């Protein structure tokens, strides 16, 4: 089918977003559709897998095949689908409580496995849909509805964790810069392997500390002059930057075999198109005789 020029409205659905006015999620929604439109994907050509939370509610407003799974469990569904049909384009999308709290184990192990999917995380440092409790990325001392005397736990640093766990593409974007974020999503999609994009996303309703203006004063872009993403130690140093200056861009990238490349059964075939009519286990059964 010849590719037609796509617009972001080509990926809209009859449903309307349910986010609060001014939510950072709108920026991510826009950046995602910009990236896909620029890649010229047909809506039926890709699969979006969502977790549960404000981020996951994007499931109703992106025109594509979608799977709106369980809280924290978007990654295994996305990976299962990709392994079943390695030609399918798969993007998983979730939030910080969803992906780094409930689904933290899947996050770590997905980084190890390096299946060729893209994982976008809305990191608003608070629980939105359950109304303002502490998230894994909430800054220490921050008062939330579940930590009225201030959060005691040290926050997770998602990019640093991703690099340490064996991630091959670790990036950070900002919901207030859709152009840059859209480019990061495209680069993540182009990356052969698991691409993790942590998106700094202000929650206008429940996080009055990490606001748009708070971020705007702090975020800066990594470029060729100030950062080489192939250097793991330097990438780790950049990932740890938080406070006065917060880096955005590709923090770390390496090329390593994808999971699919290392599964011998996937080398020359796709599970989805295998012929089921010729299966005959008699040969194996004879070994039991």
């Amino acid at each position, binding site marked *: *089918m010849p590719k037609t020029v796509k617009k972001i409205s080509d990926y809209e*659905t*009859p*449903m309307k977003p349910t986010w609060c006015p001014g939510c950072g999620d709108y920026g991510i929604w826009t950046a995602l559709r910009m990236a896909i439109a620029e890649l010229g994907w*047909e*809506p*039926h*050509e*890709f*699969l979006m897998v969502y977790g*549960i939370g404000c981020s996951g*509610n994007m*499931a*109703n407003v992106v*025109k*594509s*095949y*979608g*799977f*709106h*799974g*369980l809280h924290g*469990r978007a*990654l*295994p*569904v*996305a*990976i*299962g*689908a*990709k*392994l*079943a*049909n390695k*030609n*399918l384009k798969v993007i998983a999308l979730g939030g910080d409580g969803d992906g780094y709290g409930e689904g933290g*184990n*899947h996050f*770590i*192990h997905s980084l190890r496995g390096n299946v060729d999917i893209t994982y976008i995380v809305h990191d608003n440092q608070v629980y939105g849909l359950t109304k303002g409790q502490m998230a894994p990325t909430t800054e220490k001392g921050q008062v939330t509805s579940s930590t009225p005397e201030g959060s005691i736990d040290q926050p997770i640093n998602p990019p640093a964790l991703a690099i340490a766990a064996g991630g091959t593409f670790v990036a950070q974007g900002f919901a207030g810069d859709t152009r840059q974020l859209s480019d990061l999503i495209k680069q993540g999609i182009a990356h052969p392997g698991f691409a993790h994009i942590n998106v700094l996303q202000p929650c206008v309703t429940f996080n009055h500390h990490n606001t748009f203006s708070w971020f705007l004063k702090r975020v800066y872009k990594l470029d060729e002059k100030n950062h080489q993403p192939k250097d793991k130690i330097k990438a780790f140093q950049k990932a740890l930057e938080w406070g006065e200056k917060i880096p955005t861009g590709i923090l770390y990238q390496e090329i390593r075999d994808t999971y699919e490349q290392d*599964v*011998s*059964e996937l080398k020359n*075939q796709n*599970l*989805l198109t*295998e012929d*089921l*009519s010729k*299966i*005959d*286990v*008699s*040969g*194996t*059964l*004879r*070994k*039991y*005789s």
Partner: protein
Amino acid sequence: MKQVTNRFTWKIGGAAGDGIMVTGAMLGKIFTRAGLWVVDYSEYPSLIRGGHNTQVVQVDEEQIFSHDQGNEILVALNEETVRLHAKEISPNGVIIYDEERLKILPAMIGNRNDISLMAVPFKKIAADLGGKDIMQNTVALGASLGFLTAPFELVEDVMHDTFDDKGEAIVKMNIDIAKAGYEYVLKNFKKEFPWRIKPKKSEKRIIIGGNDAISLGLIQGGLKFYSAYPMTPASSILSTLAELAPTYGHITKHSEDEISAINLAIGASYAGVRAATGTSGGGFCLMTEGLGLAAETETPLVVINAQRPGPSTGMPTWTEQGDLRMVMHASQGDFPRVVVAPGNPEQAFYESIRALNLAELFQTQVIILTDKYLAESHWTSEFFDIKKIKIEKEKLADLRANSDYFKRYLNTKNGISPRSIPGQAGGIFTANSDEHNEFGFTSEAGEDRKMQMEKRAKKFQAISEYFSEPVVKYGPETADVTLVTWGSTTLVCQEALRKLNAMGINANILQILYILPFPTGLVTANLKNSKKTILIENNFSAQLGGVIREYTGLVCNEKLLKYDGRPFWPEEIVEFVKKNI
């Protein structure tokens, strides 16, 4: 002394790490190839070295279903084996042991003088022929066959099969070592041993356990994706499927936990391939939310639960049927699912193929419920007929390429909606864990909720109509007593039935193979036609009995329950029947 041909029980006992299960497996093959029927059963604690491990191999000319309490040959690799099991040996039976490993004092065998003690220098024979310590078992195997005066060629064949991939030298060494054990007994045992092996001609049969039967059934049923986290007694399904992956082209994924395992399988299934996951009760607990996700999104899924005694870690390497109620009701909300409990390896094979068909045809979740006894024991079985249950593929929806959205959850007459898979033009929809409308968009409207609930429930009427044999009957059509049971306990009931028949007691068995959707009509009719019913379950609270009562309003006359981590002995069932008839 009266000779007994082709009917005996062999038992071996030792520490974990002694390699006793390999020896039992080889004997099982040897006797199956000799045209006889074999069952084996092993008991072992949850550790890798030490502890007390046993394996029983029982042989008969007629089909047998479970092992008895007695044995005729006891191979003792440690003192504990002698102390614990000497009392089980039949008069004129023998203990084979190595004096270098243990001394047998009269008190250890209860001062019995009706059994023989045969010292065979396992270690020395193996070492003299260049074998490692572990090959003491091979000496024991040869010695056992010496007692039975079995033709030695049987051993050679099986050694080739077992060790061919390790090279000719290893095969030859094993054969030589077995032969030395065999000849040592022929030369040195001067008394009479009444039990004999005489090979018979038979159709080609196999000897297989529940886990391998499920693995092969799933492959034959078109499985392409299996994800799991190891848990006894389900672990060998993962390793067997992994080993066979290059041959059959499916993939296996050892995931980070059971939550991931079920979600991976759901993702693969959603994307269009036949997928399954498997675990034991504890892992199944972690999977329950995923089970509900598959139900809400109507994603085909097969889940195996090989039960072991719970709650919690319970007794990891033992058996029980305590998870029936859990799998019937697991996950929040109110949704139907299929529960099938195969009662032997043959059913495990065929029902695994059918499970994949059911899951796909009805876009539903099928739970295959087994237990450690079925999963890890082995039975001689007729060669499985791979054509008996064919793959039935769902017809994918006829899509219009230019249509915007697809009614994936269309409310059809039988509840089964047309399905598209990602990548198909014109088939766009969202599989949504939120309640949804016919397109899959989130909807909290009362009418959508009601429609989708009823649609999911309607499929189960269609499933009930699809079945031919949700219950299985054994024995005469009418009998004085009917044993009502499920899962692996069916095997012990079958063995008890053989014994009851021999005593002239007229009994039959009703096995409930498909517990959900519950075959209410068939069970009601069968129970009403029975003169006396005895419920037999390997659990504490008679879970099937409760289910029968729930669906039929009927209560079995008597019940026999066991929950000590062991399967029933057929003798226990026979005694109970005799007392209650």
